[in-house]
């Protein structure tokens, strides 16, 4: 597979995401097209990851798990990073759009992060010999996911929409501190998890399959965000449309 194929697909998907934000007329159907493309790419990822990619030098065929594990974690970082950005944006200028985006990005990030961690555990069993190892990367990733689970719990427990948005924005920024800690944990501490690879240290074939996995999950990330954002906006509208509580009638 030529290396430029996943690059072109990446540009197409990123362009679709920008078009969805910028052009209102394409919003009803563009996310469906991207989701359909994602299904096709996902089938392609199964073929590329299971058959096309060469076995890794030491992990052999178990290394094929990386083509799905790493992109899931990348999507989690993307979602949580978007959450932090929306949190800052809301605190600077209150907007229900940014609040809904923050809620959507947190949930989508938890999905990809949890799936990525589970895949990592499946990979660790034949390579490290254990399902779980309390090393810095795994601990920091777990803390990061639990922080955002707490973020969603806070949102569900707070009834007042404006208070919910403000409090969760603050919690989102605090939770965002875990992002660089998780990313650099393999460099700052002695971790069993390997450090990040670079384009120079990865075989080109493997790199192209990894990029294909990134584009595939991006094709799911985008419609997930669109639909989850719609749910969040609908919940906001419903919450603000509630009539005020009736005052208790005074005793005669």
């Amino acid at each position: 597979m030529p290396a430029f194929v996943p690059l072109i697909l990446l540009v197409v998907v990123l362009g679709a995401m920008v078009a969805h934000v910028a052009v209102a007329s394409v919003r009803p159907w563009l996310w469906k097209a991207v989701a359909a493309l994602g299904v096709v790419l996902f089938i392609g990822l199964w073929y590329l990851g299971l058959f096309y990619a060469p076995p890794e030098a030491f992990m052999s065929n178990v290394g094929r798990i990386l083509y799905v594990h790493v992109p899931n974690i990348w999507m989690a970082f993307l979602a949580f990073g978007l959450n932090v950005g929306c949190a800052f944006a809301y605190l600077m200028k209150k907007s229900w759009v940014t609040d809904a985006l923050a809620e959507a990005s947190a949930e989508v990030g938890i999905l990809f992060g949890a799936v990525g961690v589970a895949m990592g555990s499946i990979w660790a069993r034949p390579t490290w010999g254990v399902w779980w190892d309390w090393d810095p990367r795994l601990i920091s990733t777990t803390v990061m996911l639990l922080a955002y689970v707490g973020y969603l719990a806070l949102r569900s427990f707070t009834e007042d929409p404006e208070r919910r948005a403000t409090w969760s924005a603050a919690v989102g920024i605090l939770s965002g501190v875990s992002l660089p800690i998780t990313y650099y944990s393999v460099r700052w501490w002695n971790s069993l998890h390997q450090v990040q690879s670079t384009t120079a240290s990865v075989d080109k074939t493997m790199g192209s399959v990894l990029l294909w996995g990134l584009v595939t999950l991006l094709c799911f990330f985008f419609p997930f965000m669109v639909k989850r954002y719609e749910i969040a906006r609908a919940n906001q509208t419903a919450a603000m449309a509630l009539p005020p509580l009736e005052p208790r009638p005074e005793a005669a």
Partner: protein
Amino acid sequence: MKSLLLALALLGAPVFADIAPEPAPPAEPTPPAPPAPAPAPSHPQGIEKAMGSGVIQGGWEYVYAAYILGAVGVLGYAASLYARRPKPSENAP
């Protein structure tokens, strides 16, 4: 005289028979047998092949499990989004 002493010894032996005999020295525990030496690895192509190449063998079940988990995660979340989709009446301004 000697015969008298011998007679006394023979006659006195039963007298001292009820005295608890000296306990027998405890039997020393037999040391465990040394483990049998591991058989030398053998391989038709020599010892280097017998020691293994350091590459994980097999593991396809883990690969399939990971890929299926990815598909289940995506499909499951898509289903949850569909189930929670806002109804048309909820979209009314």
